[in-house]
Structures are given as structure tokens and as C-alpha cells.
């Protein structure tokens, strides 16, 4: 049993959805391009089952493209991407839920109906879908906002709903694209703690793209620093205290700060 799973049993929480089995992501020699534009070259990356891998890299280097490749929304031109052993796009799609860079909540649906989209797509009746998504609303601090229109929600709330929508899909792998980029520093720190708690309670394999090195190191088990386009992994760093309950203590710890400095250095080197 993976570490996080043991932890949530110890905390006595019940899994949110009927906890999908742990699934690993494995990328070997990956290459991708948009026509002439080479986005990714000879990229290797492993995310073990229920592990969180952070990706940081200069803007425009191909991070979103990489998440789309993992999720089965794009096809590589070289190398392979496997999710739970499946290399075909169909197989990857069924195993991955992709949270796009912008929240993309549908303005014509209430918060709960947005969160329940995957259930509805799988044929659940509206009442049943709302009931199931509603359980997550209560667990993740959104109780009372079920009927709210997306426009009525604050930035942090919108990101929570968007994340729940991804979680509700019940996929073993989450591809999260800069989930908190649009938030102010304080809300963002809150949301990181929130996501850390969510992943302790309901562990998934996560590939997390962010441009915030501290966020990557706090939320991930391991952080891969990408080069400028075409993206390769220039350095991989082990996070000192992944998803520690006390975030402030964790990120100010000297060990954490040292790793963060190394990551920054690698990022500048890769970008230069």
C-alpha cells in the first residue's frame, strides 16, 4: 500500500470516490511538434502510482502540451507515453482527467452541475450526479455553494469547483495545468494546503504543472525542471516534505529552501 493511502486510512477518512486503483505514468524518449514547431524532445518522466510529480519550466516550453500528451489528447511523434500500461490515446483518455489552465467552468451550469459533468456524461441522472458531487462539496469546503453560478464564485472557489470536477471523474491520473496560477498569494497558499489535504484523503497519481517552484516542491513528491522549447527534463529534485499538513513550516524549513534554490538555478540554466 502506498504511503499516502496508509495515511488516509490512519486519518479515518473515507475515500471520496470509490478510490480508483493506483496507476503509474511512464514517458520514454517523448518527442512532439506542432508542424515545424518542436515542442518536446527526448523527454523521460516517471510518475509512480499515487505519486505526485511537479513540472516547472519556462513559459511556452510545452508544459500544457505534455499534459495533453499524457491525457491522450495529443499523439507523440516519437517515443512513448504509457498510463497504467496503456499507450493508445483511448486508453490514456480513460485513465486521465485533465484540468485545463483556465477553470473553464460552464457559465450556464451551477457549481454542482459543473462538478458533476463527468457523472452526467457517463449517464448518471441529474439527481444522482448532484448527490454524489454534493458529498465532495461538503468534504472540500464548498458546502452551500452548490447552486451558485460560476460568475458568483471567487477565484479560489472557482478553482476548487474546477478541481472537484476533475476529481469527480474518478480517474486514477490527474493532469493539472497551473491550477492556482490566477490566484493571489494568500488564496494560493490556502489552496495548496487544500489540495494537499484532498490528495491525502483521496490519493491519485498527479502530474502538476506550475510556474511556481515553491508550489511544485510543496505539493509534489518529485519535481522535474524542464528546459526551454523543445522541452527536456534538465533536473529532477526530491521534495523534502511533500504535502506536509503545516505548509508554512514546511516551506520555510532550511532543507526546503535549499532544494528550492537548486530548482531555481536549474530553471534559469534551462531557460538561458
Amino acid at each position, binding site marked *: 500500500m502506498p504511503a499516502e493511502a496508509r495515511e488516509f486510512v490512519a486519518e479515518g477518512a473515507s475515500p471520496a470516490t470509490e478510490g480508483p486503483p493506483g496507476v503509474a505514468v511512464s514517458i520514454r524518449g517523448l518527442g512532439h511538434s506542432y508542424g515545424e514547431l518542436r515542442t518536446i524532445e527526448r523527454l523521460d518522466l516517471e510518475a509512480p502510482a499515487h505519486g505526485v510529480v511537479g513540472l516547472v519550466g519556462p513559459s511556452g516550453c510545452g508544459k500544457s502540451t505534455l499534459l*495533453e500528451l499524457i*491525457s*491522450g*489528447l495529443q499523439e507523440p511523434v516519437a517515443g512513448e507515453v504509457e498510463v497504467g500500461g496503456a499507450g493508445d490515446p483511448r486508453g490514456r*483518455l*480513460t485513465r*486521465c*482527467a*485533465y*484540468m*485545463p*489552465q*483556465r477553470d*473553464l467552468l*460552464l*457559465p*450556464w*451550469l451551477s457549481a454542482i452541475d459543473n462538478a458533476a*459533468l*463527468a457523472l*452526467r*456524461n*457517463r449517464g448518471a441522472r441529474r439527481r444522482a450526479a448532484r448527490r454524489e458531487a454534493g458529498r465532495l462539496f461538503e468534504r472540500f469546503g464548498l458546502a452551500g455553494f452548490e447552486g451558485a*453560478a460560476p*460568475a458568483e464564485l471567487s477565484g479560489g472557489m472557482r478553482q476548487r469547483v474546477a478541481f472537484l*470536477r476533475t476529481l469527480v*471523474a474518478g*480517474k486514477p491520473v490527474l*493532469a493539472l495545468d497551473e491550477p492556482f496560477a490566477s490566484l493571489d498569494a494568500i488564496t494560493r497558499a490556502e489552496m495548496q494546503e487544500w489540495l494537499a489535504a484532498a490528495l491525502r484523503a483521496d490519493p491519485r497519481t498527479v502530474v502538476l504543472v506550475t510556474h511556481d517552484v515553491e508550489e511544485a516542491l510543496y505539493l509534489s513528491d518529485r519535481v522535474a525542471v524542464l528546459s526551454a522549447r523543445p522541452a527536456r527534463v534538465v533536473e529532477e529534485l526530491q521534495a523534502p516534505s511533500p504535502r506536509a499538513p503545516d505548509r508554512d513550516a514546511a516551506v520555510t524549513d532550511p532543507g526546503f529552501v535549499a532544494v528550492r534554490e537548486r530548482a531555481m538555478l536549474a530553471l534559469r540554466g534551462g531557460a538561458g
Partner: protein
Amino acid sequence: MSRRWLLPALVLATMVGAWQVAASSGAIAATLRLEDFLVPAPSEIAASLWENRSLLADNAWVTLQEVLLGFGFALVVGLGAAVVLHLSETLRRATYPLIVASQTVPIIVIAPILVVWFGYGIGPKLAIVALICFFPIVVNTLDGLRSVDPDATKMMRTLDASRWQTFRRVEAPTALPYAFSGAKIAVAVAVIGAVFGEWAGSDSGLGHLMLLDNAQLETARLFASVVVLSAIAIALFGLLALAERRIVTWR
């Protein structure tokens, strides 16, 4: 009545008032060197509206039917065509430029041909109305469907949506306000189409009545027909705007 209507209402009242004064004093007729009876004042038009109310109503009903049926037909076919063109890239490439180019054909002037083909009945009018309504509906709806954020489509795919579910839950709602814009433009031109259709050959309808009035120099009643036609167009436009506000609540 809300404040935002106050100013336009004042402007309209002022214009009608000015017309009343200019027409009843004979100033317009004198300037244009016309007989007085050719320049009816608003009060005379109002009187004519009242005196000819059943005649106007009968003919308005004919024109309204042409407008509604023609518009309804264009709406159904136009929305359907927009969806098909959205789904099939090949069809869109093949036909969209032709649809746009077809707008340079002055559809209204083919009305006489249609009358020759289909006679004096309602057929040619429906065809004209439907033809001129079709374009704004197709083009606007297709624009709306194509304005969908590609990331939203990708998100739906990873949330296990079928093609149909993505259409129903994302694409159709996105396109809805665009479709309403198209329909509002269409309903305004529909009235014009119906009148031209009647001018090309008919034995009833407000357009037909206007031709008679013109021949008999019944200018007040001619203007009364114009008033009724405008009222029909405004009412239909208003109904669509109302429906839009009811349905597109998220804007």
C-alpha cells in the same frame, strides 16, 4: 416603463410632433410642390388606422403568416445547416464560401420568377422570406459553434463526454446567444421579404394593400400599412429579445 426608454420615447414624440405640425400646416406639401392630400399628418394616419382596422387586420394576418412560416422554416433549416457545417469540415469548406457569395444575389428581385413558377399563393412569399432569413441565422449560429474554446472540448473529452454530449453541454449553449442574434436580424428582414413577395404578385397582404393604395392615391392608408408592418417587425423582434433574456440567463 424603465428610464432607458424615456429618452428614445421623447425623441420619437418630438419627431412625430414636428411631422404633425409640418404636414398639417401644408409646409411639407408646399416645399415638395405636392397636393396636400399626398402628405398625410400623423393624426390622419391614426384616423386611417382606426377606420380601416378590419381591412388592415385581415391583410396583416396574411403577411404575418408569410413572415412566421418563412422565418420558422429558415430557423429550422438554418440551425440544422449550421450544425451540419460545424460537424463536417469538408462540407463547410465546400459550401460556406458559396453561402456567403449567395448573399450578393439580390434574392428579392427573383420574386417575380417565383411568382411565375408558383403562382399568387403563399408559396413564393414563404420562399423569399425563408431565403433572406436563412443567411443571418446560418452565419451567426456557425460563428457561435466555432467560437467554442478548444480547451473546453478537450476537457469534455477527458470527462468522458461523447461527441453528442460535448455538443449538447458545451457547443450548443455557447452558440445560443449567436443564434438569437441571427434570428433577430432575420426577423427584421423577413417583413421586408414578405412585402416584396407580395409586390411581385398577390391578392392579399399588407404589401398588396399598399399597391392598391398607391394606385388609388390613398396615402393615409398607405402609411397606415407601413405603421402596421413596422409594428409587426418590432413585436417579433421584441418577442425574440424576451425569449433570449429568459433562456440565455448566464449573460
